[in-house]
């Protein structure tokens, strides 16, 4: 595997205003807390890698993990991932258009925070969709590798490969893999079958 080439150094902080740098640090802190790794922080801010590393250490109490990002597009097609990724991406598309949102990364952050609020996400120890994967997902869409396709059964759209045949598409919930089907069942409760408010 060829080593990563030396990147050109970023402009020094003297070229930017202190206020701008403050804003960028605040943005970086928000992203670090959500799970951003150095590659993302590097792309989304103009802070130097050294500074980002130090900031990461201050926020998380440990050094950032190194190494290449292992994320592939196929991961987003597995049942669980597809549901979570679609949930995040739908929120992202809605938020992106709003007047209060002037940077794409802001939409990603807000959408990811809203994604985290859902019970389906809170149920697991770690969210199925990490912040890094969410960010990569938006990049995959931008590079035209993915699209949203409506399920012919429930009409809700889900993430699919860009040129996948969608004529008879069924989502993972309407057409679940066998190993998943059992776990979709309603939780057993002790309530009576039909509760009427006016009983």
């Amino acid at each position, binding site marked *: 595997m060829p080593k990563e080439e030396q990147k050109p150094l970023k402009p020094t902080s003297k070229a930017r205003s202190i206020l701008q740098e403050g804003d960028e640090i605040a943005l970086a802190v928000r992203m670090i807390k959500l799970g951003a790794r150095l590659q993302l922080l590097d792309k989304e801010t103009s802070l130097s890698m050294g500074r980002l590393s130090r900031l990461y250490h201050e926020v998380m109490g440990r050094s950032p993990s190194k190494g290449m990002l292992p994320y592939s597009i196929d991961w987003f097609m597995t049942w669980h991932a597809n549901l979570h990724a679609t949930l995040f991406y739908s929120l992202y598309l809605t938020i992106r258009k709003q007047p209060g*949102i002037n940077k794409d990364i802001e939409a990603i952050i807000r959408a990811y925070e809203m994604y985290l609020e859902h019970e389906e996400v809170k149920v697991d120890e770690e969210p199925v969709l990490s912040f890094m994967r969410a960010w990569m997902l938006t990049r995959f869409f931008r590079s035209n590798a993915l699209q949203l396709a409506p399920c012919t059964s429930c009409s809700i759209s889900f993430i699919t490969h860009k040129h996948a045949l969608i004529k008879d598409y069924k989502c993972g919930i309407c057409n679940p893999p066998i190993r998943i089907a059992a776990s*979709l069942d309603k939780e057993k409760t002790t309530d009576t079958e039909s509760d009427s408010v006016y009983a």
Partner: protein
Amino acid sequence: MTNTINEDIRELNLSYLLVAQRILREDEVAGAARMGIDPDTAEILKKLTLAQVTALAHSHSVICSFRLNDAQLLTSLTKQPFRSSLQQARATLALTQQMIPQEATTSA
């Protein structure tokens, strides 16, 4: 003494508008997304006075609309009793996607 239907509707309208204002004032971005209303409308709604809200609520018609107003969608969301967290996720999907323009789904 129980309410008449008209009184129920007025209460519903008032509750809806008051909660809507609270949602929008607390977080305008997430709020407008969760309510499914345009930013311009959200801006106006947020700033209505209590008097204006009460006047709006004072109607014999229900002021808010049912967002799952699609037979296929409503059937698919209700016919199979999935676990509640999954239902919540599907409802979010259905409702947020209503606000996404068609072109956005096939291109970045």
